[in-house]
């Protein structure tokens, strides 16, 4: 017997209003049978709901756990509690306005999402980005990666029981947020990258501020390592837990540190370099066994690589323009409008209608903190995209959760969910 409709459907009441009685999830017995083992039907095992309001699911993820005592027999993730309709909303926005929405996909790494989106549009329209803008993009993208990893480290350790990590990592995170605020005026939702370059040049003390981070961070990272790396309690909870092998990880389409923890050398920055990442010398940390500890190590080692990239980019940061001089996509500088009729027309056209992209389809991927973050744009030649789709690494990585948690203890589930480093804004979009 086949069941056509999706599982875990909430019945919408006819008036399209939500009331407390809607909370009962409609799952028929047939649908349940397909998700859990036959033993659950005889009452031999227990079904337990975890989430969507659970502090350790990193947002609003719901897990349906089938338990035999403390052991997890099967784990069924239920997603969509944060579905925001971002892809659909993109169809009504022109390419410049679309940038604002990308911040809110992976809100732990907004600048990397900006980078992916503007990269895709640049590919579609065919504009070149000045080298200074590319280097600044790299610096900010790496700072964003550190930001994302700091939140992961703090919350992951908090879930497992190392409360103090959270306080330390959020202290350091404020330093990074100060830099984002310096360049863009906003702490989190930056929208700083624009098609063809940057919104504006970085302020003069930007370089000093980033150098300060380079100076402070190694010491702070050492503190983190002292707290966790050889900590027997930490190792007890992470080594050998949530193992996923090389082949399985590839088969599930995992990317990012979660994949590299299993020893697969795949990093978009190396495989398909973008924004001049091929100018910099860095290595890709790899794990071997693919357990929670290896994934933790991969992310920790990425901190050092990020610092290395930032240092090189700062040393070689060239002077020059920060936005392309193609007036069809980038607005002219304000002072030009005063004497050039053409600039005034471009300005008017860009801020009313936006630029037209040629007809076609394009895919552009970047390495975000979680893995390969890809943007697919299909254009019909107008100022707005026909369809935008995001390849969210968290969603693909989350698929492997049932595999990793099979046979684990229930207390380890929070550790495994944390080690995959999902962000629900990106899973559900």
């Amino acid at each position, binding site marked *: 017997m086949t069941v056509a409709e999706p599982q875990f459907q909430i019945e919408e009441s006819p008036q399209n209003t939500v009331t407390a009685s809607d909370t009962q999830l409609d799952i028929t017995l047939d649908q349940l049978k397909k998700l859990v083992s036959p033993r659950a039907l005889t009452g031999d095992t227990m079904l337990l709901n975890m989430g969507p309001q659970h502090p350790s699911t990193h947002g609003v993820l719901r897990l349906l756990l089938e338990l035999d005592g403390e052991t997890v027999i099967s784990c069924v993730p239920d997603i969509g509690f944060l579905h925001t309709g971002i892809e659909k909303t993109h169809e009504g926005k022109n390419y410049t306005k679309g940038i604002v929405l990308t911040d809110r996909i992976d809100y732990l790494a907004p600048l990397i999402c900006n980078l992916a989106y503007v990269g895709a549009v640049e590919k579609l329209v065919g504009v070149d980005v000045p080298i200074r803008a590319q280097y600044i993009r790299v610096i900010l993208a790496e700072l964003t990666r550190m930001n994302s990893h700091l939140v992961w480290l703090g919350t992951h350790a908090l879930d497992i029981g190392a409360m103090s990590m959270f306080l330390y990592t959020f202290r350091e995170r*404020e330093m990074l947020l100060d830099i984002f605020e310096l360049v863009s005026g906003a702490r989190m939702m930056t929208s700083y990258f624009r098609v063809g370059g940057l919104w504006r040049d970085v302020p003069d003390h930007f370089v000093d501020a980033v150098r300060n981070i380079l100076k402070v961070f190694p010491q702070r990272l050492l503190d983190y390592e002292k707290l966790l790396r050889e900590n027997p309690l930490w190792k007890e909870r992470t080594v050998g837990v949530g193992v996923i092998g090389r082949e399985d990880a590839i088969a599930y389409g995992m990317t990012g540190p979660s994949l590299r923890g299993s020893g697969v050398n795949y990093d978009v920055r190396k495989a398909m370099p973008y924004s001049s990442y091929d100018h910099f010398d860095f290595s890709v940390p790899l794990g071997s066994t693919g357990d929670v500890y290896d994934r933790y190590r991969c992310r920790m080692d990425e901190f050092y690589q990020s610092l290395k990239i930032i240092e090189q980019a700062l040393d070689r940061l060239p002077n020059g323009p920060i936005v392309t001089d193609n007036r069809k996509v980038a607005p002219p500088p304000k002072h030009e409008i005063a004497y050039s009729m053409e600039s005034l027309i471009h300005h008017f056209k860009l801020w009313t209608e936006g630029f037209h992209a040629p007809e076609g389809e394009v895919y552009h991927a970047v390495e975000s903190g979680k893995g390969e973050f890809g943007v697919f744009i299909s254009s019909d030649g107008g100022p707005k995209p026909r369809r935008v789709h995001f390849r969210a690494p968290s969603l693909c990585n989350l698929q492997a959760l049932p595999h990793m948690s099979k046979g684990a203890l229930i207390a380890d589930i929070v550790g495994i969910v944390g080690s995959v480093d999902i962000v629900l804004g990106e899973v559900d979009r």
Partner: protein
Amino acid sequence: MGLEQKLGNMGVVTTSLEQAVGWARSNAIWPMLFGLACCAIEMMSTQASNYDMSRFGMELMRASPRQSDLMIVAGRVSRKMAPVLRNLYDQMPDPKWVIAMGDCASCGGVFNNYAVVQGVDEIVPVDVYVAGCPPRPEALIDGILKLQDKIKKEPLTKWQ
């Protein structure tokens, strides 16, 4: 040194029951540990080292709605999450308050579309709206102080 030792020297303090209860309630709020989207990250920053929400008597975040009396709706509420959110609100014991943190929770924010509830006040009564996308931690703290003022002025009869 406890309060009673100080009071011992002061003799008798007179106040109205309403004021005393309002004062006690406003300074021991237990918020629910419950984040939805981007704003929840700023809510976490507010609790963490730099901003330290415990200065205002609310360091104890409870993961269970039965033990909390403040719901900070931090983030966008999707149509799928809305019934869950209402259910959580119904489970909180009286007296209870709601802060809508961020533009999404207040009015839908940038997401004027089919998926997002256009303001959480469609499903739960909101006491304080905090604007911003996301609001800075200072803004959330200001919202909390506003709520504390509001609680202090609330008549006792409201929660019968």
